[in-house]
């Protein structure tokens, strides 16, 4: 059975320190974004920024694992794949949430209008009749969705880079002794990465769902499908909240699931 302690203590300590540094820096960045961003933009970007810093912490931890330097070096003839380390259930849930966010932001961006100060994509406007127009803001149009989309895409690209490093980094010792324990270390890192992606995606998805549902329902002359879409978004909230809680747990305690997987 894999004994995690087989991995040299210095390497375990270093990767854990980097991961927690990322979490702490992410919290600071999220708070700073919330306090400084204008018109709710900062609040919207807080979670993706948190995820970005966590990913940076994991990547730094993996990069800190040194290459073998002794005169005799050994390696196993085995191919390591990202799928060997990814937590399947959480990965599927986060991928679903990401697809949901893309679909929702595409719709809200397409429907957004300029607000009364001319800021594009910040308002939902409905022409009820020739003489009457109803509007609601804030709306998750391009004013919010473009910066959010940029941060989310950067975060997902960062996750791909971090995951590649998890797979490629050298084993910190003889593969005959610590393959199983080192794989456990990699599984923890992969779980943190997917957890960070989950936070990065689920918080904006929950916020956008709430804003969109409120926007649809606030328009008196709305078509029937707006009402249906609003209630569908509300109905999906418990699911997205579960993905968020699951992801948060993966970031803060990745050892729980990784150990269970290794022991299976």
């Amino acid at each position, binding site marked *: 059975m894999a004994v995690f302690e087989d991995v040299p203590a210095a390497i375990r300590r270093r990767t854990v320190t980097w991961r927690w540094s990322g979490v702490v820096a992410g919290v600071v960045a999220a708070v700073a974004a919330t306090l400084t961003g204008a018109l709710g933009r900062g609040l919207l970007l807080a979670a993706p920024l948190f995820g970005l810093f966590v990913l940076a912490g994991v990547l730094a931890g993996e990069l800190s694992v040194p*290459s*073998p*330097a*002794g*005169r*005799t*070096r*050994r*390696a*196993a*003839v*085995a*191919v*390591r794949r990202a799928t060997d380390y990814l937590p399947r259930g959480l990965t599927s849930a986060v991928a679903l949430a990401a697809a949901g966010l893309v679909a929702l932001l595409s719709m809200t961006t397409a429907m957004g209008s300029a607000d009364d100060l001319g800021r594009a994509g910040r308002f939902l406007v409905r022409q009820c009749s020739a003489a009457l127009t109803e509007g609601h803001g804030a709306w998750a149009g391009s004013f919010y969705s473009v910066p959010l989309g940029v941060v989310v895409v950067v975060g997902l690209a960062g996750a791909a880079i971090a995951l590649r490093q998890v*797979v*490629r*980094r*050298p*084993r910190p010792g003889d*593969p*005959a002794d610590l*393959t199983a324990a080192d794989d456990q270390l990699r599984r923890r890192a992969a779980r943190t990465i997917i957890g960070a992606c989950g936070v990065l995606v689920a918080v904006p998805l929950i916020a956008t769902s709430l804003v969109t549902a409120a926007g649809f329902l606030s328009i008196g002359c709305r078509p029937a499908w707006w009402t249906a879409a609003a209630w569908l978004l509300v109905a999906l909230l418990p699911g997205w909240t579960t993905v968020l809680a699951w992801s948060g747990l993966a970031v803060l305690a990745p050892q729980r699931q990784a150990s269970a997987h290794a022991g299976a």
Partner: protein
Amino acid sequence: MTALPLLTVVTDDVIPPYEQLRRQLAYLISSGALSAGQRLPPLRQLAGDLGLAVGTVARTYRELEAEGLIASRRGGGTRVTSLPAGLADEHRHRQVAEHAVDYVLKARRLGVSDDAIIDAVTRAVGESSPRT
């Protein structure tokens, strides 16, 4: 679970690392420890695990490919090929010759005579012959 085949590189050996790797992989393939179709680790992964330059491992793979032992495909990785029987025999003989050269070089470094080197081989062959 079957133990994975391991590769060992000794950095201060007279044989350069790419050649050490080539010989070990050729042996694993010819002996059947690595079967036809089995995928080899990507260059960067193996280079990282052994603390070698990517170019060193790339040279090993290039030479094994030239010998027909492995084949690389874009997007499909590097895999062990299935050798025709005649070619497999040729590889086995070549490896025996390489092992013999290694042994002779190491024994000479110990300062023993050529007769002693041959005697040791004869004794080893006798001792390890299958008993009837």
